[in-house]
């Protein structure tokens, strides 16, 4: 084939600021930790709060990660996402209660097995529910945002009422598996064992999502579909199947988050998912629609901010995350790492 010698391309040398720009959101997490360290006089308290913030952030990330992909890939505003959190919590906690002999045994192995079975049960239940939710509720309203908001909120209400029918209207108080109760002391800080487990699970989920999205063909299709679904189809990929897969995976992740959130708060209610939706939406918006990395960083920022502010100025804790969202949107109006461009 004939070569085209007329225009030999060269790489433009980027300025330091340009090279740092993509990493700026990532630097916010350590920057916030340092800020917290300077503001909190006691190192032990700071470490406790930091681990608590990271654990809370990880759980919010797990709940929100599916929603950001659904937003990005399917352009669906799913206000019913909280239903999967609630159902996941109820199914998971029911499994743990059924396996109480394992959960209450003084054996870390048995406790973790009980937790694993609960998580698998919750993810299976919410995955199946996600498939039905997409088929019955979401599919008829693709492309209609207002209808999506109304119909998915309706779906959330129906699911909440079904939970009340099945498990009753009362709050259910629970205790964590035996070996995950209590705290370990490190550098003068009391670090709750469960929070450390939550941080570990959150990191695993994030690593797994990155692995799938960055290093597999299906991940490539999802990332491309978030940007230009029509072109992905023109290349020969059935985006509809990818839509369903992402919706199921997102619902299952919300179910996992529900189990963890329930054990974290040690009480579950039919409305817990709905209540968590405020934090989930904040995280999805400040992270940038469709971005798993943005969602991860946003969740950590929300968790850390809430814990630091609650310690330093309890009265401001309720509005701290709204303030964080306002500040980030003033800096980056499309969120920290937007994948979906303005339509």
């Amino acid at each position: 084939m004939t070569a085209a010698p007329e225009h030999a391309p060269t790489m433009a040398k980027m300025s330091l600021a340009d090279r740092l720009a993509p990493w700026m959101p990532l630097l916010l997490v350590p920057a916030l930790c340092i800020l917290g360290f300077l503001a909190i006089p006691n190192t032990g308290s700071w470490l406790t709060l930091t681990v608590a913030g990271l654990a809370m952030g990880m759980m919010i990330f797990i709940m929100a990660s599916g929603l950001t992909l659904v937003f990005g890939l399917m352009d669906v505003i799913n206000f019913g996402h909280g239903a999967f959190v609630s159902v996941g919590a109820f199914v998971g906690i029911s499994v743990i209660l059924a396996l109480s002999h394992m959960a209450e045994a003084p054996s870390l192995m048995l406790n973790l097995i009980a937790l694993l079975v609960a998580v698998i049960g919750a993810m299976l239940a919410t995955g199946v529910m996600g498939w039905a939710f997409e088929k019955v509720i979401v599919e008829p309203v693709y492309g209609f945002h207002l209808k999506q908001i109304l119909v998915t909120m309706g779906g959330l209400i129906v699911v909440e009422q079904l939970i009340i029918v099945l498990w009753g209207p009362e709050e259910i108080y629970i205790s964590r598996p035996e070996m995950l109760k209590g705290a370990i002391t490190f550098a003068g800080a009391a670090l709750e064992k469960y929070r450390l487990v939550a941080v570990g699970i959150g990191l695993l989920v994030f690593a797994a999502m990155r692995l799938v999205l960055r290093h597999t063909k299906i991940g490539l299709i999802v990332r491309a579909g978030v940007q230009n679904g029509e072109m992905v189809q023109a290349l020969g990929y059935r985006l509809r199947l990818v839509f369903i897969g992402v919706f199921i995976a997102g619902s299952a992740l919300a179910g996992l988050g529900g189990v963890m959130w329930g054990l974290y708060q040690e009480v579950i209610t039919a409305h817990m998912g709905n209540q968590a939706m405020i934090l989930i939406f904040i995280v999805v918006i400040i992270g940038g629609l469709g971005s798993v990395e943005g969602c991860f960083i946003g969740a950590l920022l929300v968790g850390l901010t809430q814990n630091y502010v609650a310690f330093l100025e309890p009265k401001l804790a309720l509005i701290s995350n709204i303030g964080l969202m306002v500040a980030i949107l003033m800096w980056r109006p499309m969120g920290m790492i937007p994948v979906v461009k303005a339509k």
Partner: protein
Amino acid sequence: MSEPILKLEDVYTNIAQYHILQGVNLEVPAGAVTMLLGRNGVGKTTTLRTIIGHWRAHRGRILLDGEDITTLPTPSIARAGVGFVPEDMGIFSDLTVEENMVLAAVSGKLDSARLDWIFQAFPPLKTFWKSEAGTLSGGQKQMLSIARAMAEERRLYLIDEPTKGLAPAIVSTMARALRDLKNQGASVLLVEQNFAVAKALGDSANVMDDGRMIWSGEMAELATDAALQERLMGLSMEAH
């Protein structure tokens, strides 16, 4: 002329309340470059988008090698061997050039010999292989868009205005790449406003107006007849 690889029979396409295609008849011979010409807004892009299935034909039939693809979903049409280069290039800007190309290899891995051929045609793609496609210039994005369609052997290429808004040097590169594609015996349906490129590449030409095909014939005949050009397209294309 050889058997058509693509045939449109009395195709109508509506977009909302607008009737864009109003009975299009078109034949694309195998192993040749067929030009689709006409003024802006006459339905050329809609014709291509209807063939690939982005928009549905409300009436008529689209036949690919004799098989009716009118109602097939877009992915099935693409997998039947139709490569599509849209007018807006359809680049995945947050993916690297490599990832864009990997995605284009639907049936498996990228063929290294084919990739060498693409790199020879479009050297910048090799230079920026690991760069995000969004950082490429307009011409390089267009090269990537065409290279993506060329990533695997297709039965038919639908290419929509590949030289639009490009500098003359890059237009030459595009024209050479398309000529090489043609020399390999590819079947191409090409929408092109640059008449010099159309004249150099086209074997046959079809001129549209108002959602219909108003003239079909040899490209050479259209290229040499200024009066015909003026009558069909309202201006002398030789001036371009």
